[in-house]
């Protein structure tokens, strides 16, 4: 098979830029209609976190399979590599939101002049200088490691030397270990500290499982789009099947963590813990219950049988549902604390900004795909990936 490079067509660019324009329009609408700084900032924060995490998982997909020396994903690993290009962009947007007044809108603990006893006890960790240091360390680590993995993967493609394969494995191991710690700590920083009085030790893994299942769903969606456009014809039912298994298993894993967190708090019934769920069930009940149906029941039932995992017409709609569902999940993590039930809502601002971010993410990923050959032909497992075969 010849090595084809993806071409970023004018049509795709137009679609992407129109989506970004809708996002900017929604943002402008938010300012003009006076929806409040809380709501605008929380939206930008939600989406920049959401799409950064997709980039992180894109690279995680490459890294974790490189460590385990698996072969089946090699023919589609460029999608994950291209998605990781979004990490620094998401970081910049997040930083801009924080610097231009976002900190005070989002985080109660930044109002240092009136902290209560509980928050005063957390000052050693929750203070602005240390917060920014952690922010810098996370994004520097992610960006540099992702860049190194991308570069090594490209070198392996050009030279085909086993030396680069070993290097790839080494960097991947660094990335996975770094992400394991940083994804948990960053979710405390950017999500859990919105409700600064409350804490949960399971929170980091809960957020990470949500990131994982969405990231893998988005990889399937991009692969499918590429296939529909006439690229990557070697990706067949077998690869879709494995991605379907990932989506199925990780949806269950997410629900498991959701329930573990919920049940312990429900059982112990300590007011300072239950207030978190009280807020959400009382004022955000629709999204709270739909969250479980959309992110657990639908993937669980639709992807249960072997045959449905192998058909694009089932896997792709479920992937889109998961993509929307985990946006909702993140919404109910952020909004009750950052905006409050009186001001929060899902309107043109929320939907428009999300469309804008989706457009930007699409543009970045397609740009990344167009820069390098679509398949890593000299990867030692490339041939294995073409002949991949799975039964169950």
């Amino acid at each position: 098979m010849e090595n084809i490079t993806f071409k970023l067509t004018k049509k795709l660019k137009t679609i992407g830029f129109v989506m970004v324009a809708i996002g900017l329009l929604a943002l402008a609408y938010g300012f003009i209609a006076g929806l409040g700084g809380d709501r605008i900032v929380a939206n930008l924060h939600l989406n920049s976190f959401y799409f950064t995490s997709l980039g992180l998982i894109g690279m995680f997909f490459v890294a974790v399979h490189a460590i385990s020396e698996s072969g089946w994903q090699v023919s589609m690993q460029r999608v994950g590599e291209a998605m990781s290009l979004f990490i620094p962009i998401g970081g910049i947007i997040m930083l801009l939101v924080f610097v231009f007044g976002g900190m005070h809108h989002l985080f109660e603990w930044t109002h240092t002049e009136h902290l209560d006893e509980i928050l005063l006890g957390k000052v050693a960790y929750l203070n602005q200088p240390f917060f920014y240091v952690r922010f810098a360390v996370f994004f520097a680590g992610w960006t540099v490691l992702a860049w190194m993995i991308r570069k090594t993967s490209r070198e392996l493609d050009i030279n085909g030397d086993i030396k680069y394969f070993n290097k790839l494995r080494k960097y991947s191991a660094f990335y996975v270990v770094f992400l394991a710690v940083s994804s948990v700590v960053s979710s405390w920083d950017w999500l859990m500290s919105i409700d600064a009085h409350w804490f949960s030790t399971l929170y980091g893994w809960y957020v990470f499982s949500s990131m994982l299942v969405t990231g893998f769903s988005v990889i399937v969606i991009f692969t499918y789009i590429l296939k529909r456009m006439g690229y990557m014809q070697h990706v067949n039912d077998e690869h879709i099947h494995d991605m379907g298994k990932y989506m199925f298993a990780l949806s269950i894993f997410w629900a498991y963590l959701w329930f573990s967190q919920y049940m312990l708090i429900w059982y112990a019934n300590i007011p300072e813990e239950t207030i978190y769920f009280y807020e959400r069930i009382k004022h955000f009940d629709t999204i709270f219950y739909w969250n479980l149906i959309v992110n657990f029941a639908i993937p669980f039932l639709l992807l249960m049988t072997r045959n449905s995992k192998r058909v694009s017409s089932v896997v792709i709609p479920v992937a889109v549902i998961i993509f929307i569902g985990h946006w909702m999940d993140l919404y109910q993590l952020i909004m009750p604390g950052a905006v409050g039930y009186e001001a929060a809502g899902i309107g043109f601002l929320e939907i428009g900004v999300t469309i804008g971010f989706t457009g930007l993410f699409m543009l970045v990923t397609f740009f990344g795909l167009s820069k390098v050959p679509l398949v890593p032909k000299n990867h030692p497992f490339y041939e294995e990936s073409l002949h991949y075969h799975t039964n169950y």
Partner: protein
Amino acid sequence: MNKSYITAYYTDDDDLLKGIRQLKEKGVEIIDVMTPFPVHGLDKAIGLRRSRLSRVAFWGGTIGALIGFFFQAWVFTKAYPLNFGGKPYLSVPSFMPVAFEMAVLFAAFSIVFAYLIYFKLTPGAKPVIHDERSTDDRFLVVVKAGEPGESASIEKALSEAGAEGIKLKA
């Protein structure tokens, strides 16, 4: 019903696959193939259907979950109501772990027993050895003998397909 069958063996897995394709073309019905190691592509060659054990697991799991759930609901509301921390008697979240464990247990047991019963491997089962050499390094093929008059032609087809040690069994 005529229960007689014919066994024959191959010494090489490539010959086995080739032979099976020839037998299929001639319309010989293959009951089973026994190999000393997994042969790639064999399941497709003999037209093996997909295992139905997953369905057994699904229904076993569903029944287990329902039993687990409703048993607790009955115990905590009717049989022996106890007040735990002021919670309602019918507390669905606290029933979930047990219902989940029962689903796993029933699914696991149902597939184990379905497997044992379907393949007649229950305690006291007599081992069936079609050919002594199938316990060593030979690839054994078991085919239907058909009507009494047909067995000769099937034996001929087997030897044409390269099989050795052809035996007719009743």
